[in-house]
């Protein structure tokens, strides 16, 4: 029926009005937007392709996670057996396992009981999955402790979660607005920093593991001897790199103990500072209470011996302990510039990455290109719209005008919805808007052609319009649902720009269904009521 009841009319107008309100902040000056209540401050974000910025896809080094897992497993095994007073001959890596051989005459049964305490159920003690992180097998005096695949997967997944946290803290300190840091798939993280021009800077900040360790320098032999022959089992040679103009000019070896006294996890603060005493840049840090205690104890026992400050496997400096450090705070010195000390402090504050990250995809868009694209996109959209508006008016006259109003309402509604969900508008997204306009026009064309047909068959004005709308509706439904299916799948599978395109198209189809079915009809009914036309002018 062509009567539109009052509540329906109200609903149509209210919906249109609300979505327009939602879209409005996009074109308001910022000072107006600030005065709005926060619920109404809805807006779209411009995609990186439109405002410039850095897009990085980084991958957690799963192999490093696995290696680290095995290293710490070996340390655990050694500690457990030492505590049980079982001596071992060797503990070697083999694939995803650590193979432990006991010395002759050791209590293998005791070792067996102790080692079997290592595996923990995955997903916590109350988990019912029946899966464990490790598996222990025994052949006489030889034990094999294997890291299981589900255990490793969980470890990698946790490393990704932790990395996201660390990256977020680091990026936040850069002070950029609205960075995107998201998990992608199993082992990847998407990092988008809008407005940032220098990908190298972002990469530098993300790409540093920032694993800080304090270890004692092993003085049982000279480092040259260790390099020439064999280092003690519990020590390792590490290097300090001396850089000049960004290039490594010298590598100084140190023999340091494997045992870590305190690690960066126990830091609570780090700040860059300039030491007037030594006239160089330093980083001041503070430990939490347990770290402070450990540090105090070790420095008390080792006065006048050097300890090494190690960052990502490289020695930063190896000062001699002059006096016990009891207050839980200290400083790192070591050939810093103002910038490098500030960077180190930032990284230490944000915490260490659980594993190194590699950049697998990088896209950057300069701000000028972004601005050009916005200008081009807007111009194209306006010109395209003018074409469509003129064409529709030329073809359908007054009804074309109705259609144009409906399509404009449609586009506004679409922007309103996009603002509501806080969507990111990208260039393909603009293409999606244009395609929606095409679809919206098509809906009106379908209706108008039906009306023409009905009118040609000699129906009255009202009957022709009514039947036209009814008959077109099924077609519009089928056509839009098929499009919507394609858009939904695109949205689900796509990433980045493709996803943006799918989102605009999908939302556009929804608003098109609404405007085509209700809004055009609403205008046509008003026209019928007010003008009571004797014939349809098209």
């Amino acid at each position: 029926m062509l009567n539109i009841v009052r509540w329906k009319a109200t609903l149509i107008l209210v919906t249109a009005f609300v979505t327009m309100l939602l879209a409005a902040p996009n074109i308001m000056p910022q000072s107006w937007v600030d005065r709005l209540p926060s619920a109404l401050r809805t807006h779209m974000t411009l995609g990186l392709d439109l405002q410039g910025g850095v897009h990085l896809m980084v991958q957690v080094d799963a192999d490093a996670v696995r290696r680290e897992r095995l290293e710490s497993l070996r340390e655990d095994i050694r500690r457990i057996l030492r505590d049980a007073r079982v001596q071992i001959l060797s503990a070697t890596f083999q694939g995803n396992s650590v193979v432990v051989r006991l010395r002759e005459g050791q209590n293998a049964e005791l070792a067996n009981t102790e080692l079997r305490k290592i595996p923990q159920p995955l997903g916590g003690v109350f988990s019912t999955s029946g899966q464990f992180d490790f598996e222990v097998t025994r052949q006489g005096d030889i034990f094999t402790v294997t890291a299981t695949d589900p255990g490793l997967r969980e470890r990698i997944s946790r490393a990704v979660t932790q990395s996201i946290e660390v990256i977020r803290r680091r990026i936040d300190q850069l002070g950029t607005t609205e960075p995107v840091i998201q998990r992608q798939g199993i082992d990847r993280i998407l990092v988008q920093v809008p407005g940032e021009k220098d990908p190298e800077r972002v990469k530098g900040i993300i790409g540093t593991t920032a694993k800080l360790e304090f270890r004692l320098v092993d003085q049982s032999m000279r480092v040259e001897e260790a390099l020439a022959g064999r280092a003690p089992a519990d020590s390792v040679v590490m290097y300090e790199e001396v850089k000049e103009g960004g290039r490594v000019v010298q590598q100084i070896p140190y023999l340091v103990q494997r045992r870590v006294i305190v690690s960066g996890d126990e830091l609570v603060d780090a700040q860059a500072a300039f030491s007037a005493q030594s006239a160089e840049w330093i980083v001041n840090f503070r430990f939490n209470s347990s770290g402070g205690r450990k540090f105090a104890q070790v420095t008390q026992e080792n006065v006048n011996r050097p300890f090494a400050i190690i960052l990502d496997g490289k020695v930063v400096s190896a000062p001699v302990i002059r006096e016990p450090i009891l207050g839980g705070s200290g400083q790192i010195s070591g050939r810093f510039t103002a910038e490098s000390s500030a960077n180190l402090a930032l990284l230490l504050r944000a915490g260490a990455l659980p594993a190194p990250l590699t950049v697998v995809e990088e896209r950057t868009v300069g701000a000028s290109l972004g601005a050009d694209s916005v200008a081009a996109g807007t111009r194209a959209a306006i010109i395209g719209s003018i074409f469509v508006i003129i064409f529709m008016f030329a073809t359908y006259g007054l009804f074309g005008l109705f259609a144009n109003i409906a399509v404009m309402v449609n586009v506004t509604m679409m922007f309103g919805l996009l603002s509501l969900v806080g969507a990111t508008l990208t260039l393909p997204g603009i293409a999606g808007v244009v395609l929606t306009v095409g679809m919206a026009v098509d809906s009106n064309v379908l209706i108008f052609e039906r009306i023409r047909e009905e009118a040609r068959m000699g129906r009255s004005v009202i009957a022709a319009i009514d039947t036209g709308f009814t008959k077109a509706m099924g077609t519009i439904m089928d056509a839009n649902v098929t499009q919507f299916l394609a858009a939904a799948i695109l949205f689900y599978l796509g990433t980045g720009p493709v996803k943006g395109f799918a989102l605009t198209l999908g939302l556009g189809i929804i608003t098109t269904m609404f405007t085509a079915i209700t809004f055009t009809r609403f205008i046509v009914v008003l026209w019928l009521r007010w003008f009571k036309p004797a014939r349809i002018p098209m």
Partner: protein
Amino acid sequence: MRLLRLVPDDTKFGFLRIRPIAFAISMVVTLATIAGFLLLGLHVGIDFKGGTLVELQAKQGAANMQQLRARLGTVNVGEVQLQEFGGPSLVLVRYGEQPGGDPGQQAALKRVREVVDADYEVRRTEVVGPTVSSELVQMSVVGLILSILAVLIYLWFRFEWQFALGAMVATIHDITVIVFFYVVTQSDFDITSIASLLTIVGYSLNNTVVIYDRIREMLRKHKKMPIDELLDEAINSTLARTTITHMTTFLALLGLFFFGGEVIRGFTASMLVGVLICTYSSLLIAPSILIYFGLKTGGFGAAAPAPAAASTKVKA
């Protein structure tokens, strides 16, 4: 005021009569696509084969291609493609994947930035590593297949199996022609192309569905009309809509093509071709293929109210 009429009210084009020609043309194009695909191959962009793309803008005046080529020759990244991009000062630099996995790509990009830094502003860089590109290919193909399948299932429920199959054939036909377009023009086939391809799939289905809808409606109404006559009338009665809709979309896309900037030109170019192809296939391929799938009049629409029609069917 006289209104614009692109198509007269009462057309009686014999679309079905020329279907052998249409099918022959489509067959030739399909074969040509396969041949071209095998001989020339698709010009795959870095999204799918990995590699690096850098857009440069000369800080002053026009880009000096020769000098740029010479400089890039010194950084050892293998074969470098240079392409003017929308203006004399803009250059697109492309080179393939570098040895050394993902870190290798990063190191190479750094070297490239260093040699061009003095005279060029880097407007855009895209580095797609070996691990990502293969996944993108996989996901895109899966996406395409899934979307076609989803639509197929929907049409199966809403229509009859002949329509679902017909729409699928028409869609695959349209995809083939677009691939043909990419093979012939050797333009970059990348993730945006996939987006345009999927858009065309949607658009093509939209058109096919509109005409199929009319065919179904007429099948319910005219139980005795010969099938080819019925199809012709269905196409003709929706012809005005087909033309007007495609015209408007085409016009909107033209706006994007000429004024939308270089970045989306490739996308809109394939969309423009797509719209033409969709028009063709929804008029000439999609309806007439129904005949080959054995669609007949009189057997459709189980809920047909007229008992007379049912008895005719029994007698026939």
